[in-house]
């Protein structure tokens, strides 16, 4: 900012950006290859996309993934908001910290351990591995992130708002729905969104708790990739890349709006 970047610095940044994006564009590029390999480009074709959209099994898997993501994000957001309200309402510092540490256990634990322990848990509980086991696990590992997104908003809210509402005769329910929830809505949305992306991206936990009959996109990509190269995956990744970029820009705009609102003088 103060001094312009030297040429070497620019070159360094350029190389980093190149390395970060090259593999992704590599995938996209070869998804149009009629040759069928990821090494020499023979000619342009859209066959892989056609094949992708003709593959009902894969489309069902995509649908499963979306359903799991939406459902788990919804449920975990509801539970997470209640959890954040609880943690916030606890008056003793120590209890609050203990709850927060318990909340964060699943965030810091390696995925393998979460997956393995959930596998034991669900098997003992007698839940058949499949849709419900995956859904439950996704809800479980998304809850803490929702709590972490909502808590700062609760902390930021002035307690006098609640006192004012109570003085004006609002009951507990009205205080919650008319004062607290509108105030923390940006946090709730951010939490929902993070839960959605956690669920979409998760491979390790799902891999442990999914049975034979049920699969999500990540697990399917893994088993396809273990068998070697097939340009279907390339076509799929092009679509996912576009989708991801849309999500990123959506998130960017939401966070931009939040920050301007946080600074705003709307009070």
């Amino acid at each position, binding site marked *: *900012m103060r001094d312009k*970047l030297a040429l070497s*610095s620019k070159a*360094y*940044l350029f190389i*980093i*950006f190149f390395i*970060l994006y090259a*593999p*992704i564009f*590599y*995938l996209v590029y070869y998804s149009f290859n009629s040759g069928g390999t*990821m*090494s020499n480009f023979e000619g342009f074709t859209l066959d892989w996309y056609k094949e992708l959209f003709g593959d009902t099994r894969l489309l069902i898997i995509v649908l499963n993934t979306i359903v799991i993501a939406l459902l788990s994000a919804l449920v975990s957001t*509801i539970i*997470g908001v*209640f*959890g954040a309200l*609880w943690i916030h309402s606890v008056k003793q510092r120590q209890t609050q910290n203990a*709850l927060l540490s318990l*909340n*964060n*256990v*699943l965030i*810091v*634990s*390696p*995925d*393998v*351990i*979460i997956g393995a*322990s*959930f596998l*034991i*848990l669900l098997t003992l509980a007698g839940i058949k591995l499949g849709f419900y086991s995956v859904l439950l696990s996704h809800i*479980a590992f998304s*809850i803490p992130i929702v709590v*972490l*997104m909502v808590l700062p908003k609760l902390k930021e809210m002035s307690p006098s708002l609640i006192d004012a509402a109570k003085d004006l005769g609002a009951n*507990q*329910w009205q205080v919650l729905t008319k004062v607290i929830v509108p105030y923390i809505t940006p946090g709730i949305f951010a939490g929902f969104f*993070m839960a959605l*992306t956690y669920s*979409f*991206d998760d*491979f*390790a936990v799902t*891999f*442990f708790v999914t049975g034979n009959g049920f699969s999500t996109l*990540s697990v399917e990509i*893994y088993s396809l*990739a273990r068998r070697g*190269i097939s340009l279907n*995956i390339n076509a799929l*990744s092009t679509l*996912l*890349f576009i989708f*991801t*970029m849309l999500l*990123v820009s959506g998130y960017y705009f939401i966070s931009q709006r939040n920050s301007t609102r946080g600074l705003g003088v709307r009070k």
Partner: protein
Amino acid sequence: MENKLTRNLYVIPYALWILLFVIAPITLILYYSFFDIEGNLSLVNYKTFFTPIYLKMTLSSFWYAFLITAVTLLVAYPTAYLITRTKHKHFWLLLIIAPSWMNLLLKAYAFIGIFGAHGTANALLEVFGIGSKQLLFTDFSFVFVSVYIFIPFMILPIFNSLNELNPSLLDAARDLGASKWTTFRRVVFPLTIQGVKSGCQIVFIPALSLFMLTRLIAGNKVITLGTAIEQQFLVTQDWGMGSTIAVFLTIFMVLIMIFTGNRKKRGAKNER
């Protein structure tokens, strides 16, 4: 009265979650680690863990995680530093983070193509006259791909702490006659050490435990603690041994977190 009742009601789902999905899983892992494959109570798993095979595996897993963290740090620190110097720094940061939102397996899959026998990497080696080499299924490709995947996670916390750095401190150091290197060593780095620590923590723990990368990229050349756990649970079906390795992985994780100070870990993962 009503107040108390509603409070109790809304607490239930979250409290149940803590009980069922936080406390119960940890307890179960610990509990299972004391059972051998036939289901008898014993310490045989712990004995097995202290045999040379497992100790060597643990050591090599740590070595790879250390290597990956070190290389990632070396690449990420200058990048984070340079980004704080650019004009639209938050935009550039977002561009750095964006690839990390792409499904990890697809990125690994891309490298199967790039490092493959007839892939681009080998074509480049041919051009430089080195000749093609076996790249895929080596420990080099494992470290490379891991570093590739972890770079954004390392940049984020370092960027945050560099961004909080008061620029007048740099001016002060320069006014007092410090060279650029001295300023970096005595002012910038010590003040951003917390970001470096949380970055290392975010990279090191997954580097110990990611099993899909070792399977896809390293063939079976590299076995990390994560790979071993997956192997025990899903292939050998020896939950006891798998749990024992998981217990040790958890202990290592807690030690690493104490060592790197977990004061700031939240900010970093939040923004993934």
